[in-house]
């Protein structure tokens, strides 16, 4: 059986599935339940400074978008960091860590951007026996208005500075949690690395208005007639998170920096995708908040069954395996030619491929052949865009088939060239021509 034990910057856990710092990890009660359910680790709900804790709104904190059958696709929240007293949290963390020595317990921290604040809290956290700390530079709402969370995470210089303080005042590994609410994720990652961080974790939630109440003309969740932007997470954000993880994994400056992947992980498959794009483990929140802690059983068995099936023995065998295959558009092989093919035995005749292609793409799928409803790809029109594959409701009914080199592309009338050729050398590229001249 595959060994899915995880060693992330020296922090060991029986599997790579951690619960992200969020409501599921706010109290000993929840965390105990999570560990009983099988979670490998938790990042405790973000701690603030000593003193009166923050307060949350007393109305709705969450909003959502749904897919078919009201399946939750995206969740948005306006909750702040823990609203419980610091000492209570620390006491509980210590007890839980004692009860579960084999699980990872990370303290998430967000205090004002001054050295004294960080210096004050770090020894308190260290005293709990926590395995590491995560710096919350992510929250896009509420705390950011007070100069914390993403207000820090959006300024690389601040990140570097705070990471440096932390490395100075604690021996615990430092994980820097990044906000996606910036234009280039590599900048804060590089800054964290310069500051000496042990790892980064990403993504935190995305600035969002999840929906609007059309009766009251106010954003959801609506609190007394008004709403505020919140942090978006759940399956809908996974593609954004995957890209940001890959960007850091393949950036020359940050390559090799450990990454804890976060953003919409719902199944073992999602987790595996993060891992192969360079994440050392994953953190989960929305899926647990949607279905409860039991989902980790599916994640653990799914990941290890897949690894068994493919012959991967440890997580190191898969981590980062897809990174070399992430490239820039300009390096994609323009001589690779594919055509859609419809499996007529699987086709249910819904016609969605036809109308998608006809109305919005390349008019390459029939709707009628010899007077009979029939959907078939016209190879002389098909540009191989893959839209039909994506809109077809039947799994595997339409597939993209690569043309063998040496065969005829009926659309262009040209023979498929076996050599690799990309945009950088393409005759239509003015830059390429300049270089040639």
């Amino acid at each position, binding site marked *: 059986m595959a060994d899915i034990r995880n060693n992330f910057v020296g922090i060991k856990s029986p599997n790579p599935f951690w619960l992200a710092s969020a409501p599921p990890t706010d109290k000993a009660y929840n965390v105990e339940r999570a560990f009983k359910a099988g979670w490998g680790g938790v990042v405790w709900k973000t701690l603030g400074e000593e003193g009166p804790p923050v307060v949350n709104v007393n109305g709705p904190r969450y909003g959502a978008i749904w897919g078919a059958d009201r399946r939750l696709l995206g969740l948005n929240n306006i909750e702040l960091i823990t609203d419980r007293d610091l000492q209570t949290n620390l006491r509980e963390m210590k007890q839980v860590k004692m009860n579960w020595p084999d699980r990872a317990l990370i303290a998430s921290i967000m205090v004002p951007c001054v050295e004294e604040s960080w210096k004050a809290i770090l020894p308190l956290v260290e005293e709990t026996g926590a395995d590491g700390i995560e710096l919350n530079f992510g929250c896009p709402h509420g705390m950011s208005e007070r100069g914390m969370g993403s207000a820090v995470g959006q300024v690389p210089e601040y990140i570097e500075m705070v990471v440096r303080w932390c490395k100075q005042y604690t021996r615990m590994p430092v994980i820097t949690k990044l906000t996606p609410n910036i234009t280039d994720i590599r900048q804060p990652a590089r800054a964290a690395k310069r500051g000496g961080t042990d790892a980064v974790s990403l993504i935190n939630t995305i600035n969002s208005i999840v929906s609007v109440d059309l009766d009251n003309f106010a954003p959801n969740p609506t609190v007394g007639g008004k709403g505020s932007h919140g942090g978006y997470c759940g399956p809908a954000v996974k593609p954004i998170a995957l890209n940001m993880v890959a960007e850091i994994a393949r950036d020359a400056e940050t390559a090799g920096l450990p990454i804890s992947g976060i953003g919409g992980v719902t199944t073992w498959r999602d987790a595996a995708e993060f891992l192969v794009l360079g994440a050392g483990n994953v953190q989960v929140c929305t899926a647990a908040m949607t279905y409860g802690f039991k989902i980790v059983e599916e994640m653990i068995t799914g990941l290890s069954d897949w690894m068994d099936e493919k012959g991967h023995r440890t997580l190191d065998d898969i981590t980062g395996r897809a990174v070399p295959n992430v490239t820039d558009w300009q390096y994609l092989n323009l001589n690779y030619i594919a055509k859609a093919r419809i499996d007529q035995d699987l086709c249910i005749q*819904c*016609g969605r491929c036809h109308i998608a292609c006809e109305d919005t793409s390349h008019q390459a799928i029939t*709707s009628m052949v010899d007077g009979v409803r029939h959907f078939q790809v016209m190879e002389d029109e098909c540009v191989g865009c893959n839209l039909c594959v994506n809109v077809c409701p039947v799994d595997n009914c339409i597939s993209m088939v690569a043309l063998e080199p040496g065969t005829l592309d009926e659309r262009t009338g040209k023979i498929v060239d076996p050599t690799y050729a990309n945009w950088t050398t393409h005759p239509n590229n003015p830059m390429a021509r300049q270089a040639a001249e």
Partner: protein
Amino acid sequence: MGTSDTGIVAGRLPPAEIEANFTDLHAPLTRHEALVASDRCYFCYDAPCMTACPTAIDIPLFIRQISTGNAMGAAKTIFDQNILGGMCARVCPTETLCEQACVRNTAEERPVEIGRLQRFATDTAMQANRQFYRRAAPTGKSIAVVGAGPAGLACAHRLAMKGHEVIVYDAREKAGGLNEYGIATYKAVDDFAAREVDYVTAIGGIDIRNRQMLGRDIKLADLTARHDAVFLGVGLAGVNALSAEGEAAEGVEDAVDFIARLRQSPTKADIAVGRRVVVIGGGMTAVDAAVQAKLLGAEEVTICYRRGKENMNASEFEQDLAAAKGVTIRHWLQPLSIVTGESGTVAGIEMAYTQIVDGRLTTTGETTVIAADQVLKAIGQTFEPVGLDVLTLERGRIVADAEGRTSLEGVWAGGDCVADGEDLTVSAVAQGRDAAESIHRTLMATAAPAIDAVA
């Protein structure tokens, strides 16, 4: 406590049980169920279900409207094509129409529940009494519609919409045609047929005159003289004879009459039914009569059909329904004679076994007697051309073209009474609606000033 006496008696089951037996066959979808069901629609291109619906309702559109929380808009999409969409949602044999064409059948042998979704949308609008149509400016034209069944009502509504004045003549006490008198009780509960007539006529300009029978109280020639056009939607007023000996015996009845009595009775427990009932026929009427006899508490109900299962007009779904309710269906049996007891009432029916020889149905010479104290005849209705002998008929029904024009100028026809009628509510609606469009086009073409007259 019910009775199990022989003979035709009421109260075979406790009244409460009988009432419960006649509630909705399919419960209406709740809002949540409707959302889940609507999510299953693929919004097909040139959707096969639309083609399969005789009224060509834009099904993908109305289902998408339901899924986005716009049930009211969905209702309008339905009514645009089929103003009796409420009844059709309840009575259409969807398993042979729209739902049979659903591509989900290919994928997972379970179609989108089009009929129930249609009911959800139309109920929403009808419960709110939301009227979607206003009459166009008056045209000054007057049209006679004979028959207030689905064909006549659909025709009248479309004509009223166009600004014409419509007078509907119907022989019966109440409007609605077979919706009111024929459809099985559990398909149209809570007086739905009458409520639908009110909903349809609320547009205005439709004057329904009951107890006016063409051929008895009114004449076609008078109608053509008094009105600018005439639409005939008279359905099938007659029934086929069994041609079995002793058919006149007490206890032998037309299934449609039995059903009509049941439909018209406010308390179903009052309706008498035999202890052992035999229903002759193989169509929807036979199944409806048999099932309802069973629901009234008949101990044994047998449908006898003279051909095989595959020839039955009743759909697979209807046959399964009958079986589920405890009705026995026997094939290859044809009535020979009614067996009567001492008092002259039915005691049984003698049946001849049948077979196909050289493509023709013949008897095998073998016979059997089935004990029965009630025999219901459901071997088809016939068109009665009373006062309509001037029209060309074919196979006993009125010949009409694709637009509903009969052989007589100014006279249109549609529904069960025309030669290519399909004996379906929804087809009657389609034909009534299309005839209205044809009438409108014809009348307005004559009304419009000729081009050169303007010049």
